Structures are given as C-alpha cells and as structure tokens.
C-alpha cells in the first residue's frame, strides 16, 4: 500500500468510534428537522453545508418556536455563531501543522473541521510533530459522509433509537475527548490550563445563558498558559 493509502486508512480507523457515536445524534437531528417542516433534501443541504452537530441541534430546536420571522432567523444564525466560536481557537491551534499540507486537502479539512477530527489531528501533530493530507482526509471524509447519511436517515425513519444514552453512545465523545486530554496532560503537564478550563466552563455553563461555556473555557485555558509563562519568565529574569 502506498503511504497515502496507509495514512488515509489510519485516519478512517481512528475516527470510526466517533462516527458510530455520531450516528444516533444524526438520527435525532434528522427527525427533529423533519418535525420542524424541513424537506429531506433541505436536511441534507444543512448537514452538508453547516456540518456542525451542536449548532444544528440548537437551530432546529429554535426553528419550531421562532416561526421564522426575521428576528427568529437572525437569532438562529447568532446562536450558530456563538456555539462555533471555539473553531477560532481550534483553527489557530492547527494552522502551523496545516501549512505543511497541500492547499486542497487543507481547505477541505478546515471547511469540515469539527471537534472530533480536529482533536485527532492535534493528537497526531502532538505526538509526531506533523499531520498528513491522507490522515486528515481519511478522518474527515468518512465522518462528513456519515453525518449527512444519518441525519438524512433520521428524516426518513425517524428517531429509531429512543435515547442514545441507552447504549452509552452519548458517552463516546466524553470518553474520547477525556482520553485525548489525559494524553496531552501526560506529555505536557498542562495542569493549570486544564484546571482553569474546568472551573470556567462549568461556571459559565451554569451561570450564563446560551452556549458560551466551551469558548469561555477554551479562552480561560489559554489565559492560564499565558499567566504561567509570564510567571516563569519573571522567575528566570530574577535568577
């Protein structure tokens, strides 16, 4: 097998648990969308063009209640922006590694960058010092098609899985991201970053309306890293 095939396959294997975990959520999104009055091809269009599970959930939840006034439309788009603010941090973090990848796969990856394929790309970059076009596409293409497929299925067969919790499928994402954080922590001892993110994300989740908590926790972690390096610099300057 060529190197490209190898890395593509590696990416596909690595993303598979999360593709399975995403399936029931795709079904729910599709079923909710069809209840909200969207045609199947509109659901396919939304999942393909937006490709952001959490944002689609929130949007479709608002869809039925807003009656699609101009204000309702703007609040749906505003909520989408809010949930996806974390992408700004994520894109910045992977930019140095993406520059080593050819233009087309680079742009494709950025367009479909989600928590899952980004986290795996950063994990690979962290342990190897680089990522490859094959790996990025091997993760992203199956994961993208998977999401569109299951959200379409949701509009056709409804939500056959009553509750993804019954199968522990909701916990797949928690387990994967927790596992990756532990990996990062083992290597870098970013204790202060993790603690700041835990405290701020949980506080904001409880205290602030709207999906601010992921972005707030992410920024808090970066600020913690900045404070840590300032304190270290000051110590080094004294000695």
């Amino acid at each position: 097998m060529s190197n490209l095939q190898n890395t593509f396959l590696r990416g596909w294997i690595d993303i598979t648990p999360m593709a399975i975990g995403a399936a029931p959520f795709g079904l729910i999104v599709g079923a909710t969308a069809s209840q909200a009055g969207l045609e199947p091809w509109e659901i396919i269009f939304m999942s393909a063009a937006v490709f952001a599970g959490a944002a689609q959930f929130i949007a479709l939840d608002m869809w039925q209640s807003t009656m699609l006034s101009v204000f309702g439309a703007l609040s749906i788009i505003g909520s989408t922006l809010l949930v996806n603010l974390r992408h700004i941090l994520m894109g910045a973090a992977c930019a140095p590694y993406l520059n080593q990848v050819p233009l087309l796969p680079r742009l494709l990856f950025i367009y479909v960058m989600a928590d899952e394929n980004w986290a795996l790309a950063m994990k690979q970059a962290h342990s190897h010092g680089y990522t490859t076009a094959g790996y990025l596409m091997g993760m992203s293409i199956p994961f993208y098609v998977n999401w569109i497929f299951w959200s379409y299925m949701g509009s056709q067969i409804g939500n056959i899985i009553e509750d993804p919790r019954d199968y522990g499928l909701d916990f797949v994402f928690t387990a994967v991201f927790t596992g990756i954080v532990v990996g990062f922590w083992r290597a870098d001892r970013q204790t202060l970053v993790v603690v700041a993110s835990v405290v701020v994300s949980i506080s904001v989740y409880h205290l602030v309306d709207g999906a601010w908590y992921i972005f707030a926790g992410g920024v808090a972690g970066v600020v913690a890293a900045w404070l840590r390096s300032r304190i270290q610099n000051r110590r080094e300057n004294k000695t």
Partner: protein
Amino acid sequence: MDTVLPTFLDPASTVAAWIIIVGMAFVTALTRFAGYWLVGKKELNADIKNLLSAVPPAVLTAIVAPAIVTGTIAEWVAALVTIALAWRFSTLTAIAGGVLSVVVLRALLS
C-alpha cells in the same frame, strides 16, 4: 398573514429555510477559517506557540467537563475509569472501558 412578509413567516417556506441554512453555513465557515487566517503562515515566537499548545487541552476540557459534572454518579465514575485507563493504556482502551462502564453503571443505578 400571507400578504405581509409572506414567505418569511411561513415555517414551511423553502426560501426562508434556505436563507437561514446559508447564513448558518456562512458564520460556521467564518469561525473555521478565522483562526487559520489569524495564525496563517506567520513565523511564531515561543510565547505564541506556548499559547497555541494550550488550546487542545483547554477546548476539549471545556467540552467534557460540564457534560460530566451535570451527569449522574454513573457518568462521574465512568469518567474516572476513562481517565485511569487513558493514563495507563491506549485511547481506544479508554473509550471502550469508559463506554462499557457507563452502560453497566446506568443499568445498575436506574
């Protein structure tokens, strides 16, 4: 109602749905490309690299921490199992162990 703002007030309106979907797609793509454009191909000094290396643990922690805390004892224990397994074994083992323990614990505790 039909004569005033006809298409936009109808929830089943295709035009309204498409405008909203295009708007969602636009702001989402904007957030995805913004971070990349911001950093771009600049030569990064050590301080910036240090800040960027904090992003993966910071963002991923912010996704999972509220999800775990707002869960039940089953999620809390399963999260600890995941952390312990990830500490010692591969991520895949940690995922399998975490999901398995949440299923078992939910069944036992319900």
